[in-house]
């Protein structure tokens, strides 16, 4: 697809075009509603740019294949929905441990289990943080519109490559299946970040070297470095270790390489917050509901503002605290039984009222419902 043009795209297709712009050249996936179009569009577009698409036997195989391809030097992605993401979490954990850049898109539907295949939900928000077992720090981002999906997928690739880590893109059924006019960016319009390549000689190369910014250079297999990659806790050379003095070095690295740069990962979209007394905190498709409700409330003279979490994980604690400092009331709107409101409670002082607006009956939150909530808490 030629750059600079405008196209009518579905959210799932917009995601693929963002990925291609970012340099995705390998996709492995398995059909699952409501994400399947991500695989379909990838299967059509990738050979056109010399890339590779493979439909694996399941989601476990899909995530395994993209990790293998990433270590072999490709920029990679997979797309799935809740049940598929659940199958992937084992190897997403492997990607955390092996510090492999991968982008995993979860087009959320209702759960648990098979749940509601064709219906919207945001109930995998905490799973994106705590899916795999063990200690690690996750990055997850949540686009709110079809156009946003393209640019945020580019950002997901940049974060994955820069921090050598999995990045989860949390879409939902409404965004995935909505259609809108999307501008395919011109070449050079967005910065593209690629993983740091090794510059040392193979003899001096230390696969998981503790560099000043904690990002170890990552050569591809076949480039002469012949290093060991393992899901076992390993030393800086990549070899399994049980040593009490080496284990925390690895685990601290997985946290600090991200948390030391949290300000560069955090992204919020803030509207009408300058003088707001009530803040609506939301993410994903609910942010559109919040914005419309706040606009109507503003016209009626109420001081309502919106905070949209574009990056959900790491949770933007500092920013939420500062933005809500002069608010007396906060409404957290989400399509689940309260997965982000608990994070808000952790950072907001007790003197502020925190209200929830939750919907988990498979329908979207409407601006009217948000206005009713505003009326209730005023």
């Amino acid at each position, binding site marked *: 697809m030629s750059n600079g043009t405008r196209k009518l795209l579905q959210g799932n297709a917009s995601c693929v075009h963002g990925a291609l712009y970012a340099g995705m050249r*390998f996709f492995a996936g398995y059909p699952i509603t409501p994400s399947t179009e991500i695989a379909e569009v990838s299967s059509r577009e990738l050979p056109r740019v010399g890339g590779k698409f493979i439909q694996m036997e399941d989601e476990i*195989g899909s995530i395994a294949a993209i990790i293998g391809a990433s270590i072999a030097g490709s920029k990679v992605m997979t797309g799935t929905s809740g049940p598929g993401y659940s199958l992937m979490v084992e190897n997403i954990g492997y990607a955390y441990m092996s510090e492999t850049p991968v982008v995993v898109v979860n087009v959320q539907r209702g759960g648990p289990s098979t749940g509601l295949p064709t219906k919207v939900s945001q109930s995998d928000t905490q799973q994106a943080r705590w899916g795999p077992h063990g200690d690690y720090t996750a990055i997850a981002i949540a686009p709110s519109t079809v156009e946003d999906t393209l640019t945020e997928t580019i950002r997901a690739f940049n974060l994955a490559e820069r921090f050598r880590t999995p990045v989860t893109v949390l879409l939902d059924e409404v965004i995935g299946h909505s259609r809108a006019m999307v501008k395919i960016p011109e070449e050079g319009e967005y910065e593209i970040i690629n993983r740091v390549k090794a510059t040392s000689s193979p003899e001096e190369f230390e696969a998981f070297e503790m560099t000043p910014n904690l990002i170890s250079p990552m050569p591809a297999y076949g480039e002469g470095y012949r290093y060991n990659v*393992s899901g076992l806790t390993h030393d800086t050379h990549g070899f399994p270790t049980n040593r009490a003095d080496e284990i925390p070095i690895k685990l601290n690295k997985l946290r600090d390489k991200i948390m030391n740069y949290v300000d560069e990962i955090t992204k919020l979209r803030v509207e009408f917050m300058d003088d707001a007394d009530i803040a609506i905190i939301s993410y994903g498709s609910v942010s559109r509901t919040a914005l419309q409700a706040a606009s109507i409330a503003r016209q009626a003279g109420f001081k309502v503002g919106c905070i949209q979490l574009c990056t959900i994980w790491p949770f933007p604690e500092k920013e939420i605290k500062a933005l809500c400092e002069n608010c007396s009331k906060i409404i957290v709107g989400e399509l689940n039984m309260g997965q982000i409101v608990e994070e808000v409670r952790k950072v907001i002082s007790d003197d502020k009222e925190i209200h929830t607006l939750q919907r988990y009956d498979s329908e979207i939150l409407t601006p009217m419902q948000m206005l009713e909530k505003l009326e209730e808490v005023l």
Partner: protein
Amino acid sequence: MTTATKPKQKSDVFHQYLRPKKKFPNVWCPGCGIGIVMGAFIRAIDKLGLSKDEVVLVSGIGCSSRFPVYLDFNSLHTTHGRALPFATGVKFSRPDLKVIVITGDGDALAIGGNHFIHACRRNIDITAILINNHIYGMTGGQGSPTTPSEAFSTTTPYGNVEKHFEPCDLAAAAGASYVARGTVYHAVQLEKAITQAIENRGFSLVEAISNCHTYFGRLNRKGDGLAMIQSFKDRAVPVARAGKMSEEELEDKLVIGKLHTTGATEFCDEYQKVIDAHKEK
């Protein structure tokens, strides 16, 4: 150095491929057959003249899956049962690399069974060396998909009531284009099978029958490592001779050698044709 004037020993070849930075000893029990498979593999690589940089070793979890860590190649030690899909990603992304999977009977046929048949079906150019010791060694002797009926393990204390898989039959039926069986007694034949498997452009399986005297041998009164390896010699029948034997005569025998080949097209080659036809100029 006086060694420089000595003729090249087999052990010199071996040491040339061990990781210089890896601290030995290895995890395997004394007398384990996995080291013999590793030796056969190294000689095959050496004979084929492959560079260390172009070889990628991928493994899952289990005793056999520790093998790649000790060798000086690109090595990917993955999660239990998932070596083949990881290897599929490596190979499909970089078809110029030689991708070899080291796996075991539990890793490949139980938790990884689905990946195994689909890797065979795609006929992707990966060589899988399946070290079959008929038991889970690393976790302490539990029954595996190749544990024979009635055999004892720590999870079949009254004898196994299940049937077992024949990995070679499974691979051939699923579409693998090269299938061979060897044993750790027949190290030279094993090296030949591994060589042929790597040379085959397509999915290749080499089943290497090995001994776990620590668990399978002890629980089933098969004796020590040496006695078990000796039994492989006694039970082995070359494939050519097996063709002339009756089913009764082949009972409890191990048919060794090249069992199955096809001329099927290879997955990465076929996909490259798609790219060549559809890539935007």
